[in-house]
């Protein structure tokens, strides 16, 4: 577990910054809710009747007058996009950074197999994403308890679970790409996360593009659907996890055969 420890140390600053930013943003959203509540119930109708704009963010299916409706939309944009970026950054650089920073020779001149390197790096990503989500969940929960509002706790937990799975999926896909990249990884990682996000928006607006929801992980992390159905769409989740696994398998296949520069 030497490499796991090393990776966690190396990325500790990034991890702390992202955890604080996401945690605080969610907490702030929740804490200003009591102020917004009255205005929200008035605005609720207009929010849900802005046509395509409303459907793009799933606002046509939600009631803004409740904390659940409010949280789902705010959370969807903050934790959804922010978490996806964090997961993409975690995954995309982890293997190719060794070559970019010329440290691959150092690492590989030690008695460690490439499989071991990939596995330990994968574990470190898993730990980071898991801990970040647990902390953010706690932040959010404490804030909700602090303002003394009631929220649909099952939906709240399901929403967070969906975002966690979304991040795991994106990290897995980016991890797979990382094994093949040599440079310019950061942009590709963020690009993937952003494209996934917009695919879902397109699917929300256009009925013809509904199928996109099966490709992007944002398809199963759609707050409005989770609240209305009371459960995750497991079919989409399974597709997502298959994509994630494919990324990880590709990383193993690619990295164990790669000639290092």
């Amino acid at each position: 577990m030497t490499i796991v420890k090393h990776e966690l140390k190396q990325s500790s600053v990034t991890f702390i910054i992202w955890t604080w930013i996401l945690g605080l943003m969610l907490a702030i959203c929740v804490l200003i809710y009591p102020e917004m509540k009255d205005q929200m119930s008035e605005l609720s109708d207009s929010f849900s009747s802005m046509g395509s704009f409303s459907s793009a963010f799933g606002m046509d299916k939600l009631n803004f007058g409740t904390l659940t409706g409010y949280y789902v939309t705010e959370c969807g944009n903050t934790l959804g996009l922010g978490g996806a970026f964090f997961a993409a950054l975690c995954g995309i650089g982890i293997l190719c950074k060794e070559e970019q920073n010329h440290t691959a020779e150092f690492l590989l001149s030690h008695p460690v197999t490439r499989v071991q390197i990939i596995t330990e790096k994968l574990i470190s990503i898993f730990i980071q994403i898991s801990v970040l989500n647990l902390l953010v969940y706690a932040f959010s929960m404490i804030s909700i308890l602090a303002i003394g509002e009631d929220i649909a706790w099952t939906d709240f937990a399901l929403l967070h679970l969906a975002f966690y799975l979304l991040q795991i999926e994106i990290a897995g896909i980016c991890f797979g790409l990382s094994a093949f990249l040599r440079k310019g990884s950061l942009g590709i990682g963020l690009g993937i996360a952003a494209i996934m996000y917009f695919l879902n928006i397109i699917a929300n607006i256009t009925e013809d593009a509904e199928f996109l929801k099966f490709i992007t992980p944002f398809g199963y992390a759609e707050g409005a659907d989770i609240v209305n159905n009371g459960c995750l769409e497991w079919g989409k989740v399974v597709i997502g996890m298959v994509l994630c696994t494919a990324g990880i398998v590709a990383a193993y296949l690619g990295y164990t055969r790669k000639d290092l520069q």
Partner: protein
Amino acid sequence: MDIITTHDLTKYYGKSLGITNMNLSVEKGEFFGFIGPNGAGKSTTIRTLLGFISPTSGSAEVFGKDIIKENKSILQDTGYLPSEAFFYNGMKVKDVIKFSANLRKMNCSKEADILCDRLQLDTSKRVNQLSFGNKKKLAIVCALQSNPSLLILDEPTGGLDPLMQHEFFNILRERNKKGTTILFSSHILSEVQNNCTRAAVIREGEIIACDNIEALSKSNAKKISITGNVDLSGLEGIKDLKVTGGSDVISESCSSAIPCTTTFLYNGDINLLLNRLSDGDITDLNISEPDLEEIFMHYYEKDGDI
């Protein structure tokens, strides 16, 4: 017993050639030199042996173990010093040393302290504050702290000041006396001549000579230096003819008016040369063994031979 053996080891980078049909054997306890100009394939060979890149064809064994299948077990007992050392930015020197030992699942703190002390390496600094030479020292500590039985050194002295080079070679010689096998890649011939017992010369991906250092430096050629006038025309086996005139001008012929010095490498019949010399008007004569440097200049040049 052979520590390193390669069988027709070949590596192409796409279409461009790295090394071709390399057959090399390094015995236990040898201080083996690996000489060649930049880009000849020294690093490619080393990187293949260490498993950073996989061979296009051929095979190789280190400690009798296959370099691909048993890479991990080979590396457990091998220390590698890269020509240019890079470390994880932001890490402290002592943390890098500890990380390296942990990756080997060993506790080498005692040996690491001794090495840091001998090489005067400050372990409290961060690696991004280190100069090129100090990074090299850190790489040396990482490669040597576990007392591996094989050391693979790729142009190891670059960046080290002469005092440090001296200390570094002292350490290497001590290790070698204790039985450590050393593969020493370099393009600095004097380093190889002074330290190695045997050496291979590599050019354009091929080994063109492999022998004891004495045998490599000993060729039939003699280095001859004559002051005075002598007619050498038509004599076979003359190479690198240089004529220095009285005014230090180098020209191809010597005018009889000014006494001048003629130097060349000669591997023809020595009697024929002596006859010519006795006919000439000579004030000084010097016949010596050419040094390794002069011999290798020929290996280095394309199609050169001696």
